[in-house]
């Protein structure tokens, strides 16, 4: 009897709270938040992917150059999640990088991008997150060196690299272009991976979307104008890549596979086109001509290519569009930083299965089969074969990646 009274009281309290929030939890508002959360791919970092964690309950270790940072629990659990956070608290985190307790947030949480999001969008995200089932999930302590464990240090970082900005549309450009720029610079935070970072982890303006290294992957140059990494891609190609997970040039794999699988395949056609239109407007500097490799190296690299690679990627490097990446003109292959191509040869890679393309097409691993020198030879050969013109790589580049992969 006593218990049922308490239960009734609790239910009534819940009902009151529910009424107060009814406005905010209206269908269209939650739906808008859900879409932004999807576009922002919040689930990727805020889910412990490696251990099949509950979505949004955090705990994924993000391997930054400064140490491992564990993502927070975004579910409305009061003790371990953001259950006690107000809308203002949440907006401050997204806009200024400060948590409810007033502590500085590490910029592994990309508030440097989210800061341009208008209050309405951030509120919608908050309202959507409130609809999640609260999950109690203790998050491990970050593994950072001593000076960085001191959160106020982040304030100094922010003075150098963070600006509380608003998105200002460019009236000279189309609506689609402006929408694309908003998405790229804000919610989808493409630059977090695709823009080069300085030694302190801040974006280098001059490297905007020219490719960046993180977790020993090189996220390629995605500028789509003249000389850009996507110069050979049409708008439709970029849309296919983001929507279907397959395109003529390549497929999203590993980290980008997560992005397409969890996020972009669920975005609207208009938004994907807007992103493509914006990226296609970004020109780049002509690349530096590379010193040609020796004829011996060409011969060695070409032999390995014919024995190990040509069956899928075709003898003339044209690949099988939509299935096996063409290597002639590949921006992954010719990237300034060869980490990705070396890594994919060593450990293999899998094209992400999407709603449009269910087959998990994969490239096999060669770490057991090819030596550092052989991989360096074939990569160097391919980086200068056909129309490609990128600098050679050395066996020690491969050895470094091999030992990194053995440790991880």
């Amino acid at each position, binding site marked *: 009897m006593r218990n049922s009274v308490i239960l009734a009281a609790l239910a009534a309290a819940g009902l009151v709270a529910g009424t107060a929030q009814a406005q905010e939890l209206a269908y269209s508002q939650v739906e808008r938040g859900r879409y932004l959360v999807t576009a922002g791919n919040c689930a990727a970092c805020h889910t412990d992917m490696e251990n099949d964690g509950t979505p949004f309950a955090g705990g994924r270790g993000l391997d930054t150059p400064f140490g491992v940072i564990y993502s927070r629990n975004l579910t409305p659990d009061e003790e371990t999640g953001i259950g006690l956070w107000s809308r203002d608290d949440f907006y401050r985190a997204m806009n200024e990088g400060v948590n409810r307790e007033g502590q500085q947030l590490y910029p592994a949480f990309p508030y440097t991008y989210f800061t341009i999001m208008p209050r309405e969008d951030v509120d919608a995200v908050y309202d959507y997150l409130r609809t999640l089932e609260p999950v109690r999930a203790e998050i491990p302590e970050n593994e950072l060196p001593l000076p960085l464990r001191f959160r106020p240090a982040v304030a100094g970082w922010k003075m150098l690299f963070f600006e509380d900005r608003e998105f200002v549309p460019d009236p000279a450009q189309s609506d689609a272009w402006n929408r694309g720029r908003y998405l790229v610079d804000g919610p989808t935070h493409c630059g977090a991976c695709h823009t080069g970072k300085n030694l302190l982890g801040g974006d280098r303006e001059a490297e905007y979307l020219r490719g960046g290294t993180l977790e020993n992957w090189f996220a390629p140059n995605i500028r789509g104008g003249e000389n850009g990494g996507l110069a050979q891609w049409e708008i439709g190609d970029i849309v296919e890549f983001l929507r279907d997970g397959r395109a003529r040039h390549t497929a999203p794999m590993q980290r980008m596979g997560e992005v397409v699988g969890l996020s972009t395949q669920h975005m609207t056609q208009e938004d994907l086109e807007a992103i493509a239109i914006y990226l296609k407007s970004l020109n780049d500097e002509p690349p530096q001509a590379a010193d040609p490799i020796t004829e011996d190296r060409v011969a060695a690299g070409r032999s390995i290519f014919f024995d190990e690679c040509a069956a899928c990627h075709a003898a003339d490097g044209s690949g*099988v569009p939509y299935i096996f990446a063409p290597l002639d003109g590949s921006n992954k292959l010719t990237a300034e930083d060869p980490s990705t191509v070396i890594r994919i040869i060593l450990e293999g890679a899998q094209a992400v299965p999407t709603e449009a393309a*269910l087959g998990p097409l994969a490239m096999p691993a060669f770490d057991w089969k090819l030596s550092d020198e052989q991989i360096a030879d074939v990569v160097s050969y391919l980086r200068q074969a056909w129309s490609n013109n990128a600098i050679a790589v050395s066996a020690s580049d491969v050895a470094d990646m091999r030992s990194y992969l053995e440790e991880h």
Partner: protein
Amino acid sequence: MVTRLPDVDVVLVGFGWTGAIMAQKLTDAGMEVLALERGPWRDTPTHFPTTFAQDELRYYWRHGMFQEASQETLTFRNNRSQMALPMRRWGSFLPGNGVGGSGVHWNGQTFRFLPSDFVARSHNEERYGPLPEDMTVQDYGVTYEELEPHFDYFEKICGISGEAGNVNGEIIAGGNPFEGQRSDHYPCPPLQMTFSQDRFAASARNLGLHPFPGPAANLSQAYTNPLGMQLAPCTYCGFCEKFGCGNYSKSSPQTTIIPALMRRNNFALRTNAEVLSIERTPDGAMATGVTYVDAQGELYFQPAGMVILCAYQLQNTRLMLLSGIGAPYDPQTGQGVVGKNYCYQVMSSVDVFFEEEYTNEFVGAGALGMVVDDYNGDNFDHSGLGFIGGGYIACWTTNARPIETHPVPEGVPTWGSAWKKSVRENFLKSTSVGLHGASMAHRSNYVDLDPTYKDRWGRPLLRMTYDFTLNDRRLTAHITPVVKDIARGMGGREIKVNNRRGSYDSMPYQTTHNTGGTIMGTSPADSVVNRYCQSWDVPNLFVTGAGLFPQNAGYNPTDTVAALAYWSADAIVNQYLRAEGPLVQP
């Protein structure tokens, strides 16, 4: 102790082609489906990537993909006067194991049976009079016309490369003019033929025959199937049969269906789960599920609303016998049905050796070939010949893998330096033309439970009693000369005829086309399942596979096995689920 697991709607025993097909259609219909697979999980990038798929020693010689005889084998004898002995190493046929089953390591030769093959008894008796008494040939109970949409769908799932010969009644030059009427063309054009096929086709045409490209599950071009699965063009590496394809170029359950299933919430797969028996209600009228054992040796009872046998023909038949479902066949009385009409395939071939020209047979694919069908089925008049059925004649260039391929002409020693010299001279300059003959059912060919040999669970092994029949001998004697004529016309220096001789020998590899044992038909008196592949005795038990064939046609079985599975799945969804019970009244 047997652990009882939560109920599912359907349990599939085995997860190769027919398991994947059943799972596809039944999960489409909203049923909760669990597949139990005796072997391990297998997928392309992990288990047969291009980096080591073409390992002949591992996969061909050491049987990397096949059922291990130490886990399950069978005993064999040619006739009832002999004592059957266990096959301790596979030879004549190679049963598959693991996810994808034999569908992983097949060649990809994807023929439809002829319309007359499905009505072999009534058709032949109508044309030629009564069949001999010992010839237990039967009609399937289902017709080619009924299966046509299912053939067509499976060919689209696979992206078969070929040239149609009869689309909606229109005969198309370059295709097979004898084939049953098709509703559509093949999804992909034929593979690129090589020197050997060109010579074969020219020779066949000179003889007034009708050569056409073999229908291939090796892709001639990039293709996306109706489930959104992508297949890549074949590289003609010559490692199909006995190997997995690392290039996504061979249609298999892995490359065409399974990834779509793995995303469905109403599908689950349990590997290393070996089904020991089908369980039934106390009155035996209905199946209640299956008992299986896992890799740890733990026993489980998996209850299910329906049980579908999707394992290989040998295992499906054995499981029926071990579970006591249906009357075992008795060759003396001709009574009983389970194990009846075991059939195989009857082969002969003629090798051709060229003096100057290179055949380069190492540039091959599992179903790269030109075929003539003029001597198959009832495409020719059998009056006075004393046999029925026939076979296709083909020049396939499947491979020239060095451990298996040592072509030498007549009269060359079988070992030593003269043999080596001859292999060296002929390796790149030879080819072969083969007859792929039908195997008609005979009263004395059957499978049953062995009275002596048992498996590690103490259960009797399957016993095979099989030999070639008079029909087989007459068939090959009549058609092999045609093979010889074609081979002779190919312009080589010499030929070598490999006649089918003597009794069936279970050791040299011939083909993994074992059929019968759980045959389908029109009456419970002479078949195990009805025309919808539903057990006559236990209506919630269905059977798939080549065990359904009352006799084997002169073709490779996979297309017909798959079409029957889609046909049966269609009947389950559209008839059985509406009114559970026998779909055909005996």
